[in-house]
């Protein structure tokens, strides 16, 4: 669990980071270092922020930094591929920057076309967890962050809950809260602690992986049955940038949108294999799912297979090669069925 080591523990540090982000972004746009800046601004619902595309330095006052900054903004970068006239400034958290490293390694954006403001991240809030803690019938009208707490107001109630209790799953066992690369680090000197135990991250899937295969399959099939094929998981994933996804291909047609479960499974397995060795567990797919399917059960397991087999952790090394672009004669193959 990330704990803020800052004694002031709370809005003091967040406000400093927010102030830093605004100043740096304004400077980038003023000096022409970046033509557009992508950050977060106040959302229209409690517990939300929303991506902001800012081009005027004076608009940088809209930028915010809170535990509601859940989106991985690197998802927008492939749209700027090949745009030599645009340098994009953007805010990245510890996980987001790792997808950015992968996008650079995979030639989706060039390093000199991005200006990175790194933010030491103490984790983002999982809205579904908040709803569960509070009770789904209680409608939140306003949410405020106060130090380590979240203050929720609704019709006839005001509840204070610990942010730590409602952090998103990937944040609970985050090992890289501080971005591994950046041009500027906001909140200078501000430190967040990280989870030092690599196994902790896999605890949540351990139980599932140890089930007999038929039980795993029936659980998986039941969850995938709930999928409505909106492809929000794919669209929210920065690493799902194929101009044409295999499920959209018409000639040949790989996937029908039939009643059958098998096509839904094909999509999800296809996707998870496609991000194997690339996924950084930012949680964007899980968060985007409108029916709450925990796709991380698949991606997290894939991450473990990659880690155990190849000792590889995705998105940490800008000078390395993507896992699937390397080959050694002694590469293990025992995970192949």
């Amino acid at each position, binding site marked *: 669990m990330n704990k803020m080591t800052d004694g002031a523990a709370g809005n003091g540090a967040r406000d400093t980071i927010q102030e830093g982000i605004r100043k740096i972004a304004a400077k980038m746009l003023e000096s022409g270092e970046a033509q557009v800046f992508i950050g977060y601004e106040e*959302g*229209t*619902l*409690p517990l*939300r*922020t*929303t*991506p*902001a*595309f800012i081009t005027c330095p004076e608009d940088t006052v809209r930028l915010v930094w809170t535990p509601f900054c859940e*989106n991985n903004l690197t*998802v*927008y970068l492939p749209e700027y591929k090949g745009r030599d006239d645009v340098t994009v400034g953007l805010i990245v958290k510890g996980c987001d920057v790792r997808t950015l490293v992968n996008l650079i390694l995979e030639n989706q954006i060039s390093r000199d076309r991005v200006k990175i403001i790194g933010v030491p991240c103490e984790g983002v809030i999982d809205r*579904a967890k908040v709803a569960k803690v509070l009770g*789904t*019938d209680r*409608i*939140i*009208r306003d949410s405020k962050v106060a130090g380590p707490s979240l203050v929720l107001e609704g*019709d006839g109630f005001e509840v204070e809950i610990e942010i730590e209790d409602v952090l998103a799953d990937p944040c609970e066992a985050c090992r890289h809260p501080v971005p591994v690369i950046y041009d500027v680090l906001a909140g200078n000197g501000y430190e967040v602690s990280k989870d030092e135990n690599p196994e902790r991250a896999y605890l949540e899937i351990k139980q599932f992986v140890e089930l007999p295969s038929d039980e795993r399959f029936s659980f998986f099939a*039941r*969850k995938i049955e*709930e999928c*409505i*094929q*909106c*492809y*929000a998981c*794919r*669209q*929210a994933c920065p690493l799902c940038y194929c101009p*044409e996804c295999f499920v*959209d291909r*018409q000639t040949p047609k790989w996937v*029908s*949108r*039939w*009643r059958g479960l098998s096509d839904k499974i094909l999509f999800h397995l296809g996707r998870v294999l496609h991000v194997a060795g690339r996924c950084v567990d930012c949680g*964007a797919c899980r*968060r*985007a799912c*409108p*029916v*709450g*399917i925990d796709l991380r059960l698949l991606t997290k397991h894939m991450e473990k297979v990659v880690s155990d087999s190849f000792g590889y952790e995705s998105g940490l090394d800008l000078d390395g090669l993507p896992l699937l672009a390397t080959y050694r004669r002694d590469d293990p193959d025992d995970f192949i069925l």
Partner: protein
Amino acid sequence: MEDRAGPELFKIAKTGLDSFAGALKKASYEVLAPVQDGEATRFGVLSDEEIQIPRLSTRPLKELFFPQDEPLLSFGCGGAEAMSVEASGVVASESISPRVVLGARPCDARSLVLLDNVFVSSEYRDPYYAVRREKTVIITFACLSPGAACFCESTGSGPYDETGSDILFMGLADSYVVKPVSERGKGLLKEVFPLSEDGFSGESCILHPVDGEDIQAAVDATRAEEKLAAFAGVPVEAAVAALQDVDAFDASTWEEIYRKCLGCAVCTYLCPTCHCFDIGDEIVGASGERVRNWDSCMFPLFTLHASGHNPRPSKKERFRQRVMHKFSYFVENNGCVACVGCGRCVEACPVNQDMRQILSVFASRGGGS
């Protein structure tokens, strides 16, 4: 509906809902209610579980009438030499038994009336949709507490809107006031809960006729103006006027607002009024089915031509289409917006793209901006 004989209003204890559902089942109706499906809620067959009416189901009511995928006909291909294709006719519609939706919200009930414009208009009659509509009685629960994204009042609906409902349940402290809205709703109550001589109805006396005036006063108290205001506040009319402006299509505002859209289909698939579909043949071996399934204007494939040309090449054009269809083209064709203000698109959007905000921007800037 005002001058019919018999009681105008009934009352049922909140604890009597399961018995109410049981009575419907006993009368051979299939009862469709909000059911849990994993983390989400959607309308499905209510079996033995207790009925729970969520503030708003995750998935909209439309899928009971216009399912995500549905075979339109099946056929056999008689082998390579003789490709004889034989349509077996309408597959699904004959298998629909009489059913009751128990626990719709007014926004969802209204959405069906909007969908009727498309599926059972004077020009077209979609038999698959039509038969489901004909065989379904809609029982709606008025809303007492708006969600953070609700804006039904702004779209001409409201938390007590009766449009599309056959019977309306209105909540008081520990009971519901039951108001038959249509002849059909009234007929259902009569059939399932026949009045006995002592004035009580139904075998377990769960539904009581009540004095209209007293009850109406109690209901009116729960729908106070300030409460309704929470469901309003979005300038839909002004936005429609702006979007119907001839210059709206090319407004520079689109450039600004589309950017954060991810291009997924959450908003369209969870929308109770979005109704676009695709039709394709799915063939395995010597037989196949012609299947209709939901499609989304957010997907590039939606308008991709066989030539490779796409008239809506980027998210900007696709996003514009969604807004324009709901608030300009549909208005032109049917005289009302294709939105009931349920707020699902707002709440479920992964990037908090907010239709209310978009409408406000167009309302204040006008279409030519």
